Each structure stands twice: as structure tokens, then as C-alpha cells.
């Protein structure tokens, strides 16, 4: 079954603090598309180490959004990128697209 993102972790941290929840969503909506674009730019430019850097950054968001399988994939991909191996690109991009679709209409 395909893994779907969720706000479980953020809701646990927020408790009754709806303002924090909204703040986090606003940040992710702003930060994630930029990071996804940065990933694509680095990947298409064959900048392996820079791609590994941005994968490292993105994997934290996977974890926060409950994408644990996606996180494990990113951990492996980051290491493989350092060896100039991009075999996991398609799978990684699929995770990015899943998150992108999820956050598009996300509200607290």
C-alpha cells in the first residue's frame, strides 16, 4: 500500500496550539517546493554532492510528515548519491510528488 503523509507528529507537538500547527504548515508550503526544485536542479545538473545535500534536507521533512518508508529510501539514496549512483531518483521523485500533492490543500 502506498505510504501517505500525515500531520500526526506536528499535531502531537502542537497540542492545543493551533497557531503553531498553522505556522508549520505555512513553512512547509513555502520551503518544500523550493527544496524540491533545488533537488531537480542539482539532479539535472549532475551535481551529485549537492543533490545528496538537498536529499539530506528533504528526508527530515519525510520523517516529520510520517513518510517513514520514504525516509529510509532517502537515507539510502543520499549515500548512493555520494558514490554518484542515481538509481533511486525515480522512487525519490515519487515521494516528493506524493508530499507535494498532500501539502497543496493542507490546512490546520
Amino acid at each position, binding site marked *: 500500500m502506498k505510504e501517505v503523509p500525515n500531520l500526526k507528529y506536528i499535531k502531537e507537538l502542537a497540542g492545543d496550539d493551533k497557531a503553531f500547527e498553522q505556522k508549520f504548515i505555512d513553512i512547509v508550503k513555502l*520551503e518544500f517546493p523550493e527544496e524540491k526544485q533545488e533537488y531537480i536542479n542539482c539532479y539535472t545538473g549532475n551535481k551529485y554532492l549537492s543533490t545528496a545535500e538537498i536529499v539530506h534536507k528533504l528526508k527530515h521533512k519525510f*520523517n516529520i510528515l510520517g513518510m517513514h518508508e520514504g525516509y529510509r529510501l532517502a537515507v539510502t539514496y543520499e549515500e548512493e548519491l555520494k558514490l554518484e549512483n542515481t538509481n533511486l531518483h525515480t522512487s525519490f521523485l515519487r515521494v516528493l510528488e506524493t508530499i507535494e500533492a498532500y501539502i497543496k490543500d493542507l490546512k490546520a
Partner: protein
Amino acid sequence: MNCIIIDDEAAARAIVAQLCSTISNLEVIEEFPSAIEAIKFLNQQTVDVIFLDIHMPMFTGFDFIQTLKNPPKIVLITSDKNFAIEAYEYEAIVDYLVKPITKERFEKAIKKVENAVTQKSLSPNSVKKPDVGNELYINIDRRLIKLKFNEILLIEAQGDYITVKTEKKDYKVHNTLKKIKEKLPGNLFIQIHRSYIINFTKIIDIEDNSVLIEKNVIPISRSNRPELMRRLNLL
């Protein structure tokens, strides 16, 4: 206690700030997306705790720690468990949190910080050099030549010799960089590479990984860069 948060991800900073807000005696006074900005801030203000991401572009968390002369308590925050061993080599680091951080784990880290704060504060890691006057005598062909410290631009190691470059002349001496370093005042001179000691006051500019002194472009090694950055009076 007051604290600052250093992390290049805004989402990560927001999470740590939220965790801090649940601790009654802890106030976040500033957040920084880069270590360089935090260094400027810490040149003017002291803090009790730093929540520090390790993995940041250009200047890592460990680079940052090395720039701090009297580091406050530091809690490292990372997505990687691989840095744990290196982390505990630093006396200032009191805990190591792996993202995503739970509230329970964060509270445990705060307890560790509180315990550490009540203990004796860290002693400065710098050792004052003995007073060496304003000059240095070097032996050239059985003549002792006096060089004023403020005339020396840099010293370069070349095998068994060192070249002391001054504004007027270069002097090649059979000696080591390590030996001459002991004779130089630490407030004027700094080693920025295994082969170079420079007169800090003679820097014209710093670009990427090199320093310009007169017409000499001197490389800065990765390990010496944090100390150089710490010494700069950054605006």
C-alpha cells in the same frame, strides 16, 4: 535560561522553538539559518544554551563549535546518528537529539542542560602565551636580525626551512613553523594552514578559502578556518 536555535531549515527551527516553548524557564532569544550569522550575534551577546544542527551547508555545526572561545551548553540536533561519537569529543555538548525530536526526549535533554549549567562552568580552551615583547630575532648567517612583529606579513613553511616575509624583505631560516609559532604573540598571528602563519592585522581580504596579504594569496585549511572566522570582527 536563554537559548538560540541554529538550523538551515525553517521547519526544523519552528519545531525546536515549539519544544522550547513548553519549558517554563527557557526562552528562545534568536533563531539563525546559518552558523555565520550566529557567530556575529554571539560576538555581542552570551547565551546559556545553543540548539545546533550539525549538517548545514558551508559551515557545519562542528565548525561552528570550534569558533567559540567560551562555548555555552550545546544540544546537537541532527538527522544522522553517525556523528554521535564525534559529538562527545566536545565538552560543551551536553546532548545529541535525532530528528524528529519527541517532547519526552527534549525534556530529558533540558534536564541534562540544567545539570550541566549548575556544574562548574567550562574553562576557556585558550592558553595565554608568555609575554614575548615586540620583536623576534632570527639567525641568518650567524647574524641575529631583529624583526618587529608588526613588520612581519606571514611565515611560510618549506621543508626544513621557513620563510619570514616582511614588508621589506624575505628571510629564509632553518627552523620549523611550530617553533616560530611559540615565539609569536597570539593576538597578532594565526595559523591558517599547515604551511602558513599570517599576521592577522595584515589581511587585506578573505575570499572563499584564501586570504590576501599584500600580493600573497594564502590558502585557509578547513581545520583552521573556524578559528580565523571567530577572530574576525564581522559586521
